[in-house]
């Protein structure tokens, strides 16, 4: 069962008199529970594709279906609802709410879903445990290290147990040790909760964890390789 179906997707951005084509004729499907990554040099269209999957942007041509809904046809409200209920975003620069505590940041998606206080509390504490930040719930982002911030961002993306997590360069600001910790956490969540992960990255540390590598070049799919995960979750290449 494919939860993301992309067919002949083209994305053009208006530029001066003409248009810049960021994605050309991309066709891709993602199954539930995949741990996949969009890999490519800067400007190859990774973020653009992720944004369209995340219904933050609309396709110029072609069709993108996420969980059976056509992204191009959604109005703002429907798109917001799709994101609210089914998607978690992890950004390169964390994008945490600076004046809110760790707890409040992670609680935020649950507030949007209007969950009751008890349910929220339990879910937030679970998510903080997944990322090992139970003791930092009262801290605010400016008091945290980069790795801790990224872990909060993961907890925020995962707390509502969405069908999919879209992660744009989630490790760009992290050192090797932190990157590995975070990727292991995500791997674990992928295994335990069947969450589909789609990364956009050019970071080798991330690439080595991926079960599926989709190479983008100038807005086109250049290569699409799937690597069978071992039962222990360990991969062939590892630095």
């Amino acid at each position, binding site marked *: 069962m494919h939860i993301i179906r992309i067919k002949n997707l083209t994305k053009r951005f208006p530029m001066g008199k003409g248009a810049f084509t960021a994605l050309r004729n991309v066709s891709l499907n993602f199954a539930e529970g995949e741990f996949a990554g969009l890999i490519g040099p800067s400007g190859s269209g990774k973020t653009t594709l992720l*944004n369209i999957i*995340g219904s*933050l*942007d609309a396709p110029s041509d072609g069709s993108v279906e996420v969980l059976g809904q056509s992204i191009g046809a959604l109005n*703002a*409200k429907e798109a*917001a*609802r799709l*994101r*609210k*209920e089914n*998607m978690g*975003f992890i*950004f390169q*620069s964390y*994008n945490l*709410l*600076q*004046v*809110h505590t760790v707890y*409040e940041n992670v609680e*935020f*998606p649950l*507030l*949007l879903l*209007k969950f009751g206080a008890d349910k929220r509390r339990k879910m937030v504490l679970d998510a903080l445990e997944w990322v090992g930040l139970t003791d930092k719930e009262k801290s*605010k982002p400016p008091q945290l290290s980069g790795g801790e911030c990224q872990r909060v961002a993961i907890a*925020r993306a995962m707390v509502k147990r969405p069908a999919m997590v879209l992660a744009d360069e989630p490790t760009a600001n992290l050192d090797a040790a932190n990157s590995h910790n975070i990727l292991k956490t995500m791997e674990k969540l992928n295994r335990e909760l069947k969450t589909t992960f789609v990364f956009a990255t050019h970071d080798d540390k991330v690439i080595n964890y991926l079960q599926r590598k989709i190479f983008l070049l100038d807005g086109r799919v250049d290569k699409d390789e799937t690597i069978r995960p071992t039962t222990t979750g360990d991969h062939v290449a590892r630095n």
Partner: protein
Amino acid sequence: MWLAIKLAYRNLIGAGLRTWLNVLVLSFSFVVIIWLKGVMTGWDHQAKTDMTNYEIGGGQYWHEAYDPFDPLSLYDSHAPIPEAVRAEVQAGDMEPMLFLQGHIFPQGRMMPAIIKGIKPDQSIFKLPAASLDTVTDAIPAFIGAMMATSSRLEVGDRTTIRWRDANGTFDAAEILITAIFHSNVPSAEAAQVYIPLEKLWDISLLEGEATVLTFRDSEAERAELSGWVLKPKKLLTKSVDDMIKTKNAGQSVLYGILLLLAMLAIFDTQVLSIFRRQKEIGTYIALGYTRKEVVGLFTVEGTMHAVLAAVVSAAYGLPFLAWQARVGWTMPIDASQFGMAMAQTLYPVYSVGLVISTVLILTVTTAIVSYVPSRKIAKMSPTEALRGKLQ
């Protein structure tokens, strides 16, 4: 909405100093506006009460020739007390007063003065008329504080007054100052000398005549008297109303400036927020907020400044306003120099309506000022907001 309030509250409290500065500016506007309005209302009340007590009672009949702005009119503006009101005068519910143009000679200087005849046993005015009820070789007289200042006369002083009687003959006599009153009503004090009515009848040869008839009850229906013009209390206090209106117009400019300052602070914060917090806005949208909801959040956030300001104002403003109402506000300069009905100490009077309307107006204005820049968010593309690159 509840969620927006909750989030807005978190954001504001989290923003710390910036929030409290805005809240302080706003709360200052709250308190100052309420206080100023209160002082104006208090002044209005006081000016009218003083006028009632010292000059106009419950309203007056003026002799048809009487014009307070034309001293020469005094030569002709007197007539016998009409038959129709004799009983009322007898009962003490109407006071006849005769005005005569004359001069006073304090320390050898000559000053024009209106000589007013008043009954020592009158009970309509708070004037110290009873002080005229003394046995002395001179004519007992009392004056207002303004007159005392300009003539440098004190209680117990003697001086000369000169007048022209009904036949046009000049005559003069000595007066003894028996009292000085403080009324805050310039038109009852400036250039005026009060002496017993009977004495004035005597020396002016105008026995039984009056210039102005002041009645006690402002509510009762008054009949027309031929040869006299009815001046109801409302009409006589119109000058006070007009003055307060003028003052209010002046104050409005001040409110405007205060309001503008407060609103500028909010507007500035909002505009800045929208540019500085683009990433945050993008994050809200990525997490499933609609742009409309983000606009709502920012509007609530801005408006909440006013709500917090109201709370802060209540904390320090209420005690301050209550204390002011009790001790009054004493002007640093001598109020009698202004030549208008103004007490040295003004006691502000606040109404519930005043407080509610001030809070409401400020809150609504804040909401509008918060909303206007927030609308920009609705035009933002979420991907660009996330990149934080919108200019």
